[in-house]
């Protein structure tokens, strides 16, 4: 196994991320500076903080951050922020209603980013329970939402959720 993982281009722990003058994410590593880098999760669901692939502005891979917690605090903050922007995923904290109109359930919810209404065309395709009660949703336009653990929702929300799950 160790031989296998040697092939991975893991960034050293002193890799430093910062926001440059263009408000882009930049990376300084082993004396080199990369402007306007992008960060992508290899395991967005299973390990959102691990195996973060860093690409340069030509979308070529520079390397992989094994775990963002190993970065220095400033780097951690900016990388975390960049990830949160790329993977915009509001958490649903309360379901007010799921009304079905013309076969399409329309959800009215409160999220950690504010209230929201959205439609889910196909509950079979666009609602995924990924274990531990975590539910991922995708609405008609491709926006994503999550319920961190549907079993912990309040009674009213749970009643709505259970008709869909």
């Amino acid at each position, binding site marked *: 196994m160790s031989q296998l993982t040697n092939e991975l281009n893991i960034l050293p722990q002193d890799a430093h991320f910062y926001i440059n003058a263009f408000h882009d994410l930049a990376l300084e590593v082993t004396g080199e500076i990369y402007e306007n880098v992008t960060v992508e999760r290899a395991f967005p669901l299973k390990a959102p903080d691990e195996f973060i692939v860093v690409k340069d502005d030509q979308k070529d891979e520079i390397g992989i951050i094994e775990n963002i917690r190993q970065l220095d605090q400033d780097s951690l903050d900016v990388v975390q922020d960049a990830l949160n922007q790329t*993977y915009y995923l509001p958490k649903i904290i309360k379901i007010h209603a799921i009304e079905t109109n013309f*076969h399409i359930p329309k959800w009215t919810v409160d999220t950690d980013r504010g209230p*929201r209404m959205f439609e889910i065309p196909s*509950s*079979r395709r666009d609602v995924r329970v990924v274990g531990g009660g975590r539910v991922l949703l*995708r609405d*008609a*336009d*491709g*926006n994503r939402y999550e319920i961190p653990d549907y079993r912990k929702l309040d009674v009213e929300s749970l009643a709505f959720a259970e008709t869909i799950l």
Partner: protein
Amino acid sequence: MAEPTDTLEESLPDEIHAKLSDILQPDETIHFSTTSDIRLDGAFGEAWLLATNHQLIAYSPDGGGPPDIVRLPLSEITSIEVKDLVGSGQLKARTANSGATLSRFTKGLNPKFSDVAKTLETLVKEAQPGIENDKLLRGKLARSASGVRCETCGTVIPPRHDVCPNCLDTRKLLTRLLMYARPHWKLGTLSLFLLLTATFIGLLPPLLMSELIDNVLGPISLSDPLFKKEDAYSQLYLLVGLLFLINLSQSSLSAIRSYILSKLGQHVTYDLRNEVYQHLHQHSLSFYNERETGRIMASITQDVGRLQDFISDGLQEAIRDILTIVIICCILFYMDAKLAALTLLPTPLLVYATLKFSERFHRNYRGLWRRWAGLSALLADTIPGVRVVKAFAQEDREVGKFQVISKDLFEGEVRVAGIRSIFSPIMSFITSIGTLIIWFVGGGSVLEGTLTLGSFVAFTQYMFRYYGPVQSLCRLNHRFQRASTSAERVFEVLDTQPDVVSPPNAITLPRIEGKVEFKDVAFSYEQGKPVLKDLSFTIEPGEMIGLAGHSGAGKSTLINLICRFYDIESGQIFIDGHDLQDISLNSLRNQIGVVLQDPFLFNGPIAENIAYGNPDASLAEVVAAAKTANAHEFILRLPDGYDTPVGERGVRLSGGERQRISIARAILRDPRILILDEATSSMDTETEAQIQEALHRLIQGRTTFAIAHRLSTLKHANRLLIIEDGELAEIGSHDELIAQDGIYARLCHMQTELSKLRAL
């Protein structure tokens, strides 16, 4: 939810205008102002983006704190970038030494912000005359990902629906459906008449019962001296006779009615089914590409069936139910208005409970159905993959996975069982309230002598007959909905106009020479994604042309265009000097023969498959074709020879055998233009040799287009067309192209290297 906004000009609220007044110069005018739905801090909410003649301003209220205001002067902007991220999008602008995110928005606003970006690009160009154009705007926003919205009203169109249910007029739809029943109006009227009569007769027995109690059985106990037993008997016999007649006529009426109705329904289905199937065959390939096969099949089988069910059962039942309710109400109110009003009191409760329950039922059943589907999906996944499971020794894990899903299903079933088990008791309880009222009030009236015992009994009976129709009417809405969805799907097939059609005064091609000419042909399957661009070339009659290039370069598309499976976007294609658009489709395709990589055989005997394009071919011709195709020998080895059924899609034959049959099919058709699409890939060497030989005979004297990934199979080609990114990159013979040392030479080189590797 995204509200589709057509205009980028949204009027700026005064309060925001007031807050921006410090920033704006006195001579500044606002070019446009528009909103997004995520603020710069990442929370949902309204944020503004403005462009004046000097600058871009992003104004984003920050929850509680001071608003985020970002400003960039138009004259310094060097790039505008849209980012299509996971779950949202962003608009960013840069100057020579700084940059800022101007807007964040949900995916529903992608179309709007594509336009915003373009508008900004124009503004920046105006502000900086002579700026380099092509690098100003970067990135692209994809259109809506999973669902499709209706273009007129913005409603999400359910998957597999294709028609916006909001813009659909249900009544119009059902009227249209009834038009199909119109040719059979005599049957319809007759069955309606029978229905009315049967309903009416069916409601008589309680009245007889009342008569029996009050005038025949009741008086006995009074030991009236005037009472004559004989009279009572004759009345009894009369009533028994009447009841017999009523039951008999009701049964026979309903038997006749049900037959007539089914016949009517079948007539409509028959007409509709044939019309849909006939219409299906007029559509071009793009119609099929856009839809799943299962969905198309369902509209012929399921949907049409549901419509029949609705016409013959649903509608009539609804009429019967309404009629029954009206008649019963009339009778009850006639007998005793006060008691009738009291008896019917529980009706709203019953309606409410039925509606509530059916909604919950429906929802939970859907959930249950999803769980069942999950279970079947797992089975469909693992059982065919059992070799892999065993090879990796993962049986226990698969069993575990199954148990999890099975448990889910169990819980769902239990929940539905719970609802189901309280449903009937609650319903009977509600109905029993009616009985209680009759006993309490009606019983009192009988004691008082204001109501006869017979009417009392009749009341009870009518009441029970009243609740059934009420409940079934409550469920009518659901039935209506289902029927209209089916109707809409069926009519959608019927209403879609075929996009590839022969012109009204089409030329019927005589037997052609086989000259093919492309002139500036451009084509795309999806708008904005060109597959072929300005393709021009001329192929002489009898030439064999090899088509090569990377996968996705447009080779198969080119062939689809020659067959006119699709219409080109611009340019012209000529066959023997005739524009393809002017030729009748049949006369064109009659001269084209196709041999595909995975030949499609229809379920039927081999001989029929060979003669698929020429059903009138003689047996001698079929055998001759098979011989030329090197298929004769293996066919004779089969016990049933040419009469051997090939099975669905030809499963009982090997790939090479199927291929030779399809070559025989092409030979028999004697086409002037021949298309070989990867005809020899995935064959073993010996089979390939036989097929090559057969093909070689086939191509003699015909214009041939051959696609092949293995370039060695193109060695007989007179010329080769190399397609790269939808453009004609190279054209010429093998030797010429090798001498050119271009794409073809490189491809050849790579394949020789590969075959050397294989030889090792």
